[in-house]
């Protein structure tokens, strides 16, 4: 059995030791955008009550009612979206961390495996 001269030739290792092909860069880009938009929404939704109060000042009648109803639904939806983005960001972060942890374990396993194989090869040569 030949020992790889220039690892990582992951095909050499058993499948359970090969790195998880997790798209970390894409995941981190998505986390960044989700976090940024969630922060933007949080900040803007925080400022909205002041804006809305300004519009409502002295505003009465059918159009005020229509505004209130529409804004009430929209505000709930925006707040929900902000939470969804936070949750998604957290889920992606967890997946990234899990993949990193598994890959750390697998790297150790590969190193051990490689050492074993080299040891067996040199032992066979001594015989």
């Amino acid at each position, binding site marked *: 059995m030949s020992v790889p001269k220039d690892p990582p030739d992951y095909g050499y290792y058993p499948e359970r030791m090969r790195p*998880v*092909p997790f798209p970390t860069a894409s995941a981190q880009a998505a986390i960044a*955008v989700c976090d940024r*938009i969630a922060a933007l929404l949080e900040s803007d939704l925080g400022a909205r009550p002041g804006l809305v109060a300004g519009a409502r000042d002295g*505003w009465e009648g059918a*159009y005020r009612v229509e505004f209130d109803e529409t804004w009430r639904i929209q505000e709930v939806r925006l707040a929900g979206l902000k939470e969804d983005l936070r949750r*998604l960001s957290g889920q992606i972060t967890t997946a990234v961390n899990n993949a990193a942890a598994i890959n750390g374990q697998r790297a150790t396993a590969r190193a051990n495996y490689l050492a074993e194989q080299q040891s067996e090869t040199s032992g066979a040569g001594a015989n």
Partner: protein
Amino acid sequence: MGTSSAKPAKLLAYRDAGIAQVEKWEPEVANLSTALGGLRDALAGLDLPEGCELSILFEEVWFDTLTRNQRHLDEWVGDVGDEFLRASGRARDDIGPDDSFTVDDAAIVVGFADRDRAERQAADDAAALARILGPTGLINPYELANDPDKLDEMARLYPELRDILARSARFHADEDYAVALVNALGPTNVRTLADLANTFGIAADRGKADGAWDGYVVPLATLLGNADRSGRLDDSVRDALFDMDAGDEQGGEGADHNFIIKDQLADMRYRSLTLLLAAGTFSPETTARMADTIIHDGPLAPSFYDYSGFTNYQFLADHRPLAANEWAALDALTRDDHAANIFYGLHDGRNLYLLNGGLGADTAARRLGVSPGDVAGDIDRTLADSLTGGLQNYPLATGTVYSPETTRLIAHLVEAAGDDYVDAPDAVRRALAQISTPYTRDLAVAAEGYDRYLPDGRLPGLSGDEVDKFFREVSESKEARLVLGQNAAALVSTEIGESARDIAASDPNAFGQGSTLATAYYRELGEAWDHVQVDRLAQREALVAGWRSFTDPVVDLVSGKIVEKIPVVNAAADLPLAKNVVDGITGTIKDSINSAVYDHAIPRPELESMTTWRDAIEDDVEHAVAKGLYDDPATRQHFLDRAAAGGDPAYASVMADGQVTFDEFGRLGGVSDAVLTQSHRIVDGFQSDMAFDKMFGGG
């Protein structure tokens, strides 16, 4: 319904602040879409262990929806505010933040606050329109001539369509409603609706569809324009408006083997396009494309019998530009500087060769019952306004006066104006002279032949010969000559300002570059004026009046400082707004030009008595030098320090209040010496380089 009260200023302030938030969200919609789409693609097909798997819902779509909803709601609140103002007969500038108004609910004409509801209504209205519409909105010219019942049949559609459009007028400011409706209609129905604009016009001209302009064309054009400006109009629908070949459609029978009928059908469609352009407000790109199509591809003179609608005299009395398609197209460009800018850049600048004016004058004259000469002046002023709007106002408002795109366009304009086949009317010549103002120095550089000691010219590829031809063409107008005279004086003034520190340092070559450029510019002017046989006194008048009437804004334009002084607006901004931004500047220039001829009219004996440059401009040059030294803080301080150190007797009185005015500054001995020395040098330079006799042909 009852009544409503509101403080419109508060609603409009909410709209502005709300939209400012939404404008931060909108680019993030695409960012989220890219990021989540990229991650989904990267995860596709991967067999990941537990804990690494991800299920990503379509949050980007929801974010997009909510962002659109928010913009819709915020704009709707602004629409309500605008409606309160309209119903109360007030303008925004005219009200305080706490002014409250109460109006009938029915007086507030707005769509729905909820975007979904607006789009559902649009779908219902589109279905209602589609049910009424037949397969065509055209009447075959043969049938129109031989079967009057056909027109009656078509005209009977008008009241129903009018009523639906009247309902949709509630959504006059709602782009979401408009684009949903127009896209739901699809290209065939939109084409039919567009054709009906002309057909109803023919019917209206015959008394069979009274009020069809306000009842049909205006609301339809408003809908189409709103849909177009939303940026979400299907291309196929927009293209349907530009489909001028009806030969393959119902109503266009016979066109495939009868060129006369084919042309007559095309006449009808060009007229429809013109009517929609005149009545609506489309995006700048579509406006430019419509104008270009009408002017270049439309019929030169509609055939006899005329199949164009809304051409009766009574109607045209109130809508004069609609007397000719080309005039209406130019008129639309004057309402949208961005569109005019795009229009003049289309097809490698071919529209720059429209400078001869008179577009559509024969047709307009026939329809208005006047001679072509009576209407040509109005059309030419419209052309001139579109040139000024597109090539001066728009670049100024958007800070693109010296961008490569603009300078290329201006160089092309200079070249076109000097073309052998161009013989522009005076209104256009004046516009050309005004448009050239920010490029005065560049024209001087080109005239001088790009000397390596001079700054680089910014008008690419322009030769001295082309500058010469440009000046010849423009200079046939008295007002344009005055503009050029002002530009020349402002160029000298600018160069003096830039040489102020060298002048203060008594550098004998202080005005070297200025002298070269000014001489080149004056020389070109003189040669052009001689060539077009402007008489000597008229030449002197333009030269001297230019010196006596040029204003600070003109100097700012010539020096390029105007770019820093005008607040740059977003290129996508509403163009009337962009126009307003520069109106303060260009208005001043226009006023100075309008009044200069009269305010600064120089009596003939005085003109006759001028035989040298010194006679003509010495006082003005002295003033310019003094102003250059005063305006530069460093040179102003330099002369104050000198006066203090040298015991200048004027110093104590000048500085008595700790301030120095321009007049006081001129009383300082060092200043008056420097002014006299330098102004003599400048005037002597002009005298020796281009003696008055040589340039102006003696008294």
